[in-house]
């Protein structure tokens, strides 16, 4: 019996921090479908998506010490890490000014690895997946503009300035649209 299957996400991260490769394997089994789906949605092609997925798990292996064990939020950390890595790859492929820097360890630590505070609530994969129907309803209640702005920002990897250029609206408008979209999404989810 594989004892790692019984461990929580956080316990797996602790094992990975001790370089226990089978814990990483279990984490891969749990998270790779969701992370791959997200990465594939962001990156331009399947080959890139596969490469990014591998890179993400290599980052997890090498940089577990950067994970915030105080809040223990494995789910959000992994999803945000995968999203950041995928968006960075996408931005580099379209020569965006926001990623003109050389990709090295320092860059990865600062721009790719998520910044989470200690006061953040913990979330794991099972809890997140149990919320899917509520998330669907909460998102569907947003206006088309709000959905579009979230899509451009989250999946297309555009910055606020780039969205403002694309939509030909002032930067301030985009800022408030992003904030309102997220706040409405949060409020809808709370009401569910």
């Amino acid at each position, binding site marked *: 019996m594989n*004892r790692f299957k019984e461990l929580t996400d956080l316990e797996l991260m602790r094992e990975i921090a*001790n*370089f*226990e*490769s*089978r814990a*990483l*394997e279990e984490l*891969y089994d749990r998270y*790779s479908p*969701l992370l*791959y*789906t997200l990465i594939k*949605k962001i990156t331009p092609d399947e080959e890139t998506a*596969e490469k990014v*997925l*591998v890179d993400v*798990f*290599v980052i997890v292996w*090498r940089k577990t010490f950067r994970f915030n064990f105080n*809040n223990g*939020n494995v789910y*959000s950390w992994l*999803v*945000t890490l995968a*999203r*950041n890595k995928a968006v960075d790859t996408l931005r580099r492929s379209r020569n965006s000014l926001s990623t003109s820097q050389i990709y090295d360890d320092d860059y990865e630590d600062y*721009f790719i690895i*998520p*910044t*989470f*505070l200690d*006061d*953040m*609530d913990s*979330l794991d994969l099972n809890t*997140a*997946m149990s*919320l*899917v129907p509520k*998330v669907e309803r909460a998102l569907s209640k947003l206006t088309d503009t709000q959905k579009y702005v*979230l899509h*451009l*920002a*989250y999946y297309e*990897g*555009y*910055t*606020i*300035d*780039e*969205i403002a250029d694309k939509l030909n609206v002032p*930067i301030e408008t985009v800022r*408030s649209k*992003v*904030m309102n979209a*997220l*706040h409405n*999404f*949060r409020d809808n989810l709370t009401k569910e």
Partner: protein
Amino acid sequence: MSDDAIHEMMAAFAIGCMDRKNFIQFKDYVDAGGELPEGALGELQNIVSLIPTILEIEKPKESLKDEVAKRLIGLQDEIKTRIREEKRKTLLGKTYQTAQKETGRPTFQLSNLTKSTIVKETKEEMKAKTKTKYEGSVIPEKPVQYMTPQPSIPQPKEKSAGGIIGWLALLISVILFSVLGYYSFTSIETLNKQIEELNHDITLFRSELSRTNNFMNNYLSFIEFFNYKDVIIINLTSVDPNEKASARVFLSFDVKEGLIQFKNVKPLQPNQGYQLWAVSKGVAYSMGVYTPSSNEYIHISSFPFIPKENIEMLKITIESNTGSPTPSVQSYLVGNFPQQTKVR
């Protein structure tokens, strides 16, 4: 910074759509323990991470797992080094559970990668090193060899005659050594003095060079800055008419860069800084905290994101050196934004 601005920043940060400059500014603020509504950023980050759950989940190819395993094997040396470094600090004494073996599907199991095996390996390596050390040592394996009598070499017999010549030679040698010693001593002393003087000169030249470099760097940034178009100059003066303190701010909205120069400002406490604010519609937006050492030109670290037409004035307050989200004390220096730049 107003509440709305903080919430907009948090939302943009959570969804990951900040441009580079604002990202760095906000991340540094968060990393430095800057004040934020409790739990608000984490809540938004959690909400955002739920977005991909509604996608139609697709499994990656099985071969990708092998690919991850291969990359991990490639990292073995790096990880081993890290574990060894960690272990050497607290070395030996602790035992670790041996890894349980598993077989079956492609796995990430890396031979010799668990702590237990690494520690064992380290111990063995140390043993081997110790062994090698002794093998290569000059100490013989059989010390008894030193006890074996060595073949004797015939020694020249001492001559009894020529005692006076010997004494004379010894005397001359002593005199020669004394003269040579004195000469060496005085020469070395002279050389040491010269070296000391040269060192002094070098230090002087270095400090001179450093001052010149500082001067050049300071004014180069100032000269370069004036290559930009639409440079706006704002003079800030003290709210106390008896005080001579002032500051000048140079802003180029074309390239979103700026410089600030302080003059005759009062000395700050070690934990204080001068925080620059752009005031628009009664709301103050931070443009960074500065701790000038003299009259140097300092680059504006946070260029205002509000349009220049909306800026009414700039002001400076004395805050903690980590900055404050809103001005917490009365203004120290103030200056009106030039009227001709406003759209009427």
